[in-house]
């Protein structure tokens, strides 16, 4: 376990770094005790970066290179049980290979923080971004957050430990970072000072749940039907409780670090009075914002809503943001073969969120950017036009459209 606390950043400072490097720096600032790793692109960029920090003596932590992703996630789960602050991560099928460990991590209420460098699932082997890998934990009790910028990657990593380790929550946190767009491109990031981080992030204390000889407990029992519903309900309640914890942490974050959106859950971009609102996650924000700005300049009432926390999903805020729109166009960087309307995962989440509204907007879905294909401003314009057509005619011709796919 880390003994000497290195002080990498006495003063807040600007750096030109990638999203992965930003997460690596957050690990150092958060004084993470145990990091486990197993290489897979694009997540491996963070592994390389913390290796360098360790080699340089800039960040002291237990670094365990596992023999597979499964062990990688088992090890952090166990380390978390004994009270260590932990970090791990993976991508694509590597993340899937760890899945047994990933699901028990939430079941056991271990606040592991993991970076998912979003990557298409094999086959075919492909490095580019898709969201299906991280999305697989959406029902299991993991926090699931989609990052849009390197700055946000750093900020949210710090938030992640703060939220996950809260004694009323104790649920793991997956930080989803789009492969390539975030993991491999560098941007100017304001790195906070160690003092700021120390003020924001208290030490991880597992209390009476900590595995320790002085606190003799056994964890992870086998149970029968007499117990499972109660246990699931407890995790459900922890997931409900985390929303308040997220809000509180977000407020303090804004106070201490002086930045952050009004809401921790969603980002509303020109949504005020918008008739068409595009919805998406992660780095899709970039081209979409540009397109929306241009459309606004041309007098079109268009806005963009970025979903940041997919879990917990802030249904009320989303209803509030979208309730007055005439059409909602959801951009999915994922797929759900055979699902209703053949739509993506985000689309279904949105449609279900808006269903209770008295006045429901028209809902369209666009599957775009799979495998790292670029989503262009023209693509966004096409989506907006399709939505406008639906508003004009009062009907949706095609609920789900695959964007920029060769026929």
């Amino acid at each position: 376990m880390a003994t000497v606390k290195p002080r990498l950043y006495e003063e807040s400072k600007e750096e030109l770094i990638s999203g992965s490097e930003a997460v690596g720096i957050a690990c150092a600032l958060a004084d993470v005790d145990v990091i486990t790793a197993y290489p897979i692109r694009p997540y491996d960029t963070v592994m390389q970066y913390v290796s360098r920090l360790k080699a340089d003596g800039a960040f002291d932590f237990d670094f365990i290179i596992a023999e597979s992703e499964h062990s990688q996630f088992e090890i952090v789960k166990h380390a978390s049980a004994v009270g260590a602050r932990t970090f791990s991560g993976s991508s694509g099928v590597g993340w899937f290979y760890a899945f047994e460990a990933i699901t028990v991590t939430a079941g056991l209420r271990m606040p592991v923080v993991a970076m998912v460098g979003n990557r298409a699932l094999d086959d075919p082997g492909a490095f580019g971004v898709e969201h299906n890998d991280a999305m697989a934990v959406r029902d299991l009790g993991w926090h699931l957050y989609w990052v849009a910028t390197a700055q946000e990657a750093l900020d949210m990593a710090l938030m992640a430990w703060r939220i996950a380790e809260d004694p009323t929550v104790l649920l793991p946190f997956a930080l989803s970072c789009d492969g390539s767009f975030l993991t491999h491109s560098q941007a100017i990031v304001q790195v906070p000072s160690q003092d700021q981080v120390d003020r924001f992030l208290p030490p991880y204390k597992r209390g009476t749940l900590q595995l320790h000889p002085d606190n003799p407990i056994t964890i992870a029992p086998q149970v029968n039907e007499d117990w499972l519903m109660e246990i699931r309900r407890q995790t459900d309640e922890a997931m409900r409780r985390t929303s308040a914890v997220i809000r509180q942490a977000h407020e303090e974050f804004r106070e201490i670090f002086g930045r952050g959106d009004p809401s921790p859950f969603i980002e509303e971009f020109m949504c005020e009075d918008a008739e068409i609102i595009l919805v998406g996650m992660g780095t899709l924000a970039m081209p979409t914002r540009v397109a929306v700005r241009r459309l606004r300049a041309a007098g079109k009432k268009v806005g963009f809503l970025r979903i940041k926390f997919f879990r917990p999903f802030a249904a009320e805020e989303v209803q509030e943001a979208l309730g007055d729109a005439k059409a909602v166009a959801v951009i999915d960087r994922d797929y759900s073969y055979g699902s209703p309307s053949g739509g993506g995962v985000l689309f279904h989440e949105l449609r279900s969120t808006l269903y209770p509204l008295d006045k429901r907007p028209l809902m369209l879905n666009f599957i775009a950017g799979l495998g790292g294909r670029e989503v262009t401003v023209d693509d966004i314009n096409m989506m907006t036009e399709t939505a406008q057509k639906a508003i004009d005619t009062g009907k949706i011709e095609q609920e789900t459209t695959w964007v920029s796919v060769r026929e």
Partner: protein
Amino acid sequence: MATRAVEVVYRGIFQRTLARNIVRQIVFAARKDGKIGTAFGRYSDSPERNGIPAKQFAVVADTALELEESLAVYEATMVDVTINVDDTMCKGLESWAWYGLQPINEVTKPGGTLIVTSRQSADALLEDIHQKKDPYNLSIIPSTVSFSGLWVFKDDHTDMRALGAMCKACPELVSIKAMLESVQEQTGNEAKVASVQRAFDRGTSRPVEPGEGNTETPFSFDMPGWKTMEEGLVIRAQKEGTGFRGGEGGYTPGRSETFKKWSTRSMRPVINFDTCIKCTLCWLQCPDTVFDITPDGLYDANMEACCGCGVCEAVCPVPDCITMVGEPEFNDNSSQYDAWTADKDGYNKWMTVLVEKQKSETRTHGFHHVGGYAEEIAASEEA
């Protein structure tokens, strides 16, 4: 009502095949009567553990629709016949932690029948069997307990005898004619058919009046809800022990409050305190921390906690210092150490008689000493 149910209460692993044979054969036979049925084991009993009380069921109905109606409740809460294939379970069943002690006749319906394989008399069994509010019948198949293993089955016709007795007790469920035909068809074995017929012919039952039987209230627990349970799938270690029964000197270990496990056992250790050399081995090796250490350094097996595995007997280095004795010999869990300190001669006489009797009988399972299995095989080859 045209749906009828049978439960077979058996000891996990040792009697699994026996129980399965019985419930399956009931369903096959019911077909011969033009009925339809289903046979199943209680899912929570799996994976089965040695000796833990477990259940299998057969449900038989006149029509498929009626069968479906009755299966809306997975585990029958009322059965026409309870077949108990080990009489030591008449003391009650505790299958899992928090389950409490369930009387053997808990789900036997008013007017139904409890069938027990036993060498004991009805009166002796009723000292163990908990009383009920409603009348029912008790039928005994005179027999030693039939125990096998996971992969072997002692084909001693206990299943056939249980089936014959069941047809006698509840002909509405399956007629003896259908049963005989079906057994012939399924096994092609005349001897088995004869066993069914004989058990049917000899089957008698005795009415048990309301309030007749063991008047003790079986222990039970209130399961906590999600708001009161500890989060994080944590189970606290047992509390540290105290002095012998809370007093000075000696030691009584902390034990699970909610899983006593003594209904698991079909035998219990009987200890000769005079020959004990205080070597600690029984105390050390017992998997259930059963032994209380007395202030004078002896080891008193606490029968509230003993699962009857026989490990203490196997590890005790002094001949006959610990002997496993069949559970039917006992009606309570009282302390042998207390009995011995109160009246040493009386205790030793009682113990000697029991131990000698035990030695003269073939065991249902387990071996008295290392090498016992080889001796048993050799003896059976000679015979």
